[in-house]
C-alpha cells in the first residue's frame, strides 16, 4: 500500500511542478494563472495581513456547518420515511436521479426574497444542495442491511427499537457516512455558489471581488484555500467510510 502512496504523491507533485514550470516559463501568462508557489505565499500574505480574513472564514464555516447539519438530519429523516413507503419511493425516484443535473441555485434569488440577504438564505441553499444526496444514501443504506442480521435480531427476539439501534443502524453506517460525505461536498458547492452570486460576507464573495478587481493573487490564494479544505475534509470522511466498510463487510 505504501508503494501506491509514494506513486500517488509523485504524480500529484509532478503535476504541480509542471504547472509551476509552465507558469514560470511564461507559457501560461500571469493574467491567467500565477505559479502554484506564489498562490501559497499569497495565501500566507492574506492570512497574515487581511483584516477581513478570519471574519469571512467564520461566516462561511458557520453557514456551512448549519447547512450540513440541516441536510444530514433532514435527509436521514426523509430517507427513513421514503424507504418505509415503497410506492412513494418509486414515484420520487426520477426526481432524485435528475435533481443534481439542474443548478439548484437559480432558486437563490427567490430565497433572498423570502429570507433576505444573509446567513439564512445561504444555509437554506446549502441544505437544498446536500439533502437529496443524504436521502438517497439513507435509502440505499437501509436496503443494504444484510438480511441475515435481521434474522439474527428475530432469533434473539429483539424489539423493533433495539433491532433498529443495535442491528440496522450500525450495519447501515458505512452508507450513511457516504451520504454525509456527499452532503458535505454538495453543501460546500451551494454555500460558495450563493456567496459568489450575492452575499455581503464570506470567502466566496471575496473570490468574486478579487476576480472583478483582477486581483489574481488574492483570488488564487482563496481558491487554493477552498479547494484544499474540500479535499482534506473529503479525504478524512472517505477514510472513515472505508474503515467502517472494512469493519462491516470484511469479505
Amino acid at each position, binding site marked *: 500500500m505504501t508503494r501506491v502512496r509514494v506513486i*500517488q504523491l509523485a504524480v500529484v507533485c509532478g503535476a504541480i511542478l509542471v504547472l509551476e514550470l509552465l507558469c514560470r516559463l511564461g507559457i501560461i501568462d500571469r493574467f491567467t494563472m500565477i505559479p502554484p508557489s506564489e498562490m501559497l505565499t499569497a495565501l500566507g500574505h492574506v492570512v497574515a495581513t487581511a483584516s477581513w480574513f478570519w471574519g469571512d472564514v467564520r461566516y462561511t464555516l458557520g453557514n456551512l456547518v448549519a447547512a450540513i447539519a440541516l441536510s444530514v438530519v433532514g435527509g436521514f429523516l426523509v430517507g427513513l420515511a421514503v424507504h418505509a413507503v415503497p410506492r412513494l419511493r418509486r414515484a420520487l425516484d426520477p426526481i432524485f436521479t435528475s435533481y443534481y*443535473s439542474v*443548478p439548484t441555485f437559480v432558486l437563490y434569488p*427567490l430565497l433572498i426574497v423570502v429570507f433576505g440577504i444573509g446567513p439564512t438564505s445561504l444555509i437554506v441553499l446549502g441544505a437544498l444542495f446536500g439533502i437529496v444526496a443524504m436521502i438517497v444514501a439513507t435509502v440505499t443504506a437501509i436496503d443494504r442491511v444484510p438480511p441475515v442480521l435481521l434474522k439474527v435480531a428475530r432469533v434473539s427476539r429483539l424489539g423493533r427499537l433495539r433491532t433498529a439501534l443495535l442491528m440496522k443502524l450500525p450495519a447501515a453506517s458505512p452508507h450513511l457516512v457516504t451520504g454525509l460525505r456527499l452532503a458535505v461536498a454538495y453543501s460546500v458547492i451551494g454555500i460558495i455558489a450563493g456567496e459568489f452570486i450575492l452575499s455581503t460576507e464570506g470567502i466566496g464573495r471575496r*473570490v468574486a471581488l478579487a476576480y472583478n478587481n483582477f486581483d489574481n493573487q488574492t483570488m488564487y490564494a482563496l481558491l487554493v484555500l477552498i479547494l484544499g479544505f*474540500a479535499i482534506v475534509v*473529503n*479525504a478524512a470522511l*472517505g477514510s472513515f467510510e472505508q474503515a467502517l466498510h472494512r469493519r462491516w463487510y470484511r469479505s
Partner: protein
Amino acid sequence: MTARARLVDYLLLAGGLWLAWIVLFEWAGPEALSPPGATLRRAGEYLTSAQFWPHAAATGLAFFCGCVIALLGGLALGFLLGAHRLAGQVGEPILSSLYSIPKITLYPVILLVFGLGISAKVAFGALHGIFPVALFTIGALKNTSPVLIKTAQVLRLKPLATARTVLLPAALPEIVTGLRIGFSATLLGTLIGELFASDQGLGFMLIRAMEAHKVLDIMALTLLLFAFAALANALLLAVERRVHPR
C-alpha cells in the same frame, strides 16, 4: 406493479407536488414564488416563442460538445486506469478527490483560460462530467468477476478480444450508470458556465431573469430545465435497466 398502478403513482406525485407548490406560494407570496398555473403557461409560451429556440440551441450545442468530451475522455481514462491494477490504485483516489472538489470555485480560472463564450461553457461542462464517467468505468472493470478473466485466459483470448467480448459486456451496466451520471453532471456544468459566462443560452436567460428579478421567468425556465433533465434521465434509466442483468 402494473403499468397502471405506476401511472396512478405518478399522477398522485404530480398532484402532491402541485399542492405543495400552492401551499408554498400562499406562504411566501407572489414576490418570491409564481403560482403553478401561470408558470406552466409561461413555460408553454417559451416553447412556442421565437426567441427561446436560438438560446436552447446554443445550450444544446455546448452541452453536446461537453458530453462528447466528458464521455469519451472519461471512458478512455477509465479503461486506461481500470485495466491496470497499480494504475487504478494510484489514479482512483486522485480522480475521486478531483470529483469531490467544488468545481464551481474554478469558474474564474476557466474564464481566464477560455474567455467568454462557448469554449468556456464546453470546458466547464466536460470538467463536471468526465470524473464520474471515469470513476464508474474504473469501478466496473475492478468489479469484473475474476472467473470471467480466468476463463478468457483459459480460452487464450488476445487482450483486445478479452476487452471486447468479456470485459466490456461484464462492465457495461455500471458503465451505463456512469454515463447517466456524467450526462447529468455535464448538463449542470454547462448551465453553470452559461450562468456566469455567456451571452446566449438558457443559463444566460436565467441569469437575466434573476437580475431583473422576474420570478415567473425564473420559475418557468427552471421548470423546463428540470423537465428536460428528468426526461433525459428517465430515458437513460430505461437503457440502464435493459443492460442490467436480472
